[in-house]
């Protein structure tokens, strides 16, 4: 691929049932580009976890994807409450999700650690009261 490709998707924060729509679209786009299935899966899972987080905690946001010739860059931006203690948020099992989210199969405190696990690079930039931007990169 000579030039980078960009995709941008709004993440609707109003409806938990529709959470994951952006990740599904990205997954299909990456398939059409002919990327290998393991790379696509890593990107999809990391982005899906991020998208779920945006819906649970931040009432949605924007997902920006860039595909270069060697990596996929995922940027998730929201104007949610921000993360007060990032180190704590990165611990497996730590969650501030409300109980009703757990009954939906999420909120186990695995989202952020999982995003880190499936990507080669992850950075969290967050200001309490203003929002969070998460940047992830997957090399291929």
């Amino acid at each position, binding site marked *: 691929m000579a030039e980078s490709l960009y995709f941008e998707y709004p993440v609707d924060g109003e409806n938990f049932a529709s959470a*994951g729509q952006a*990740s599904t679209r990205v997954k299909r786009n990456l398939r059409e580009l002919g990327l290998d299935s393991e790379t696509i899966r890593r990107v999809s899972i990391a982005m899906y976890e991020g998208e779920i987080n945006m819906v649970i905690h931040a009432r949605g946001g924007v997902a920006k994807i860039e595909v270069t010739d060697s990596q996929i860059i995922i940027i998730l931006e929201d104007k949610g409450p921000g993360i007060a203690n990032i180190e704590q948020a990165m611990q497996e099992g730590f969650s501030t999700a409300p109980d009703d989210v757990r009954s939906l*199969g999420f909120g186990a*405190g695995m989202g952020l650690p999982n995003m880190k696990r499936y990507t080669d690079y992850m950075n969290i930039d967050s200001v309490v009261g203003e929002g969070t931007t998460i940047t992830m990169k997957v090399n291929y």
Partner: protein
Amino acid sequence: MTIKDIKNLLDAEVVCGEESLDKEIHSACGSDMMSDVLAYVKNQAVLLTGLLNAQVIRTAEMMDMICVVFVRNKKPTPEMAELAAESGIVILSSPKRMYEACGILYSNGLRGEGEING
């Protein structure tokens, strides 16, 4: 075994994906916690679950799974079935409980390890 074998072993009803019943399955997992599925599952093609919402189908899709079995006779909504059909995922609904359903499949040779990365 094939998806059809799973259907027969679990007395399950096919909700969608009838055309894919001959697909081969080598491993499966069972969980109601989608966070755990996303964290720990690798190369398992079937998800057995008692959780019923659209995120089950999306989780299966992200994990490249090809079949979801709802236990305890749970039936997905038409929207969930449509989402699964779009993603090429077979949905089965079985009257068995989770423990029993997993046990039947396991004792018939369907294990939990992925073929490639275990």
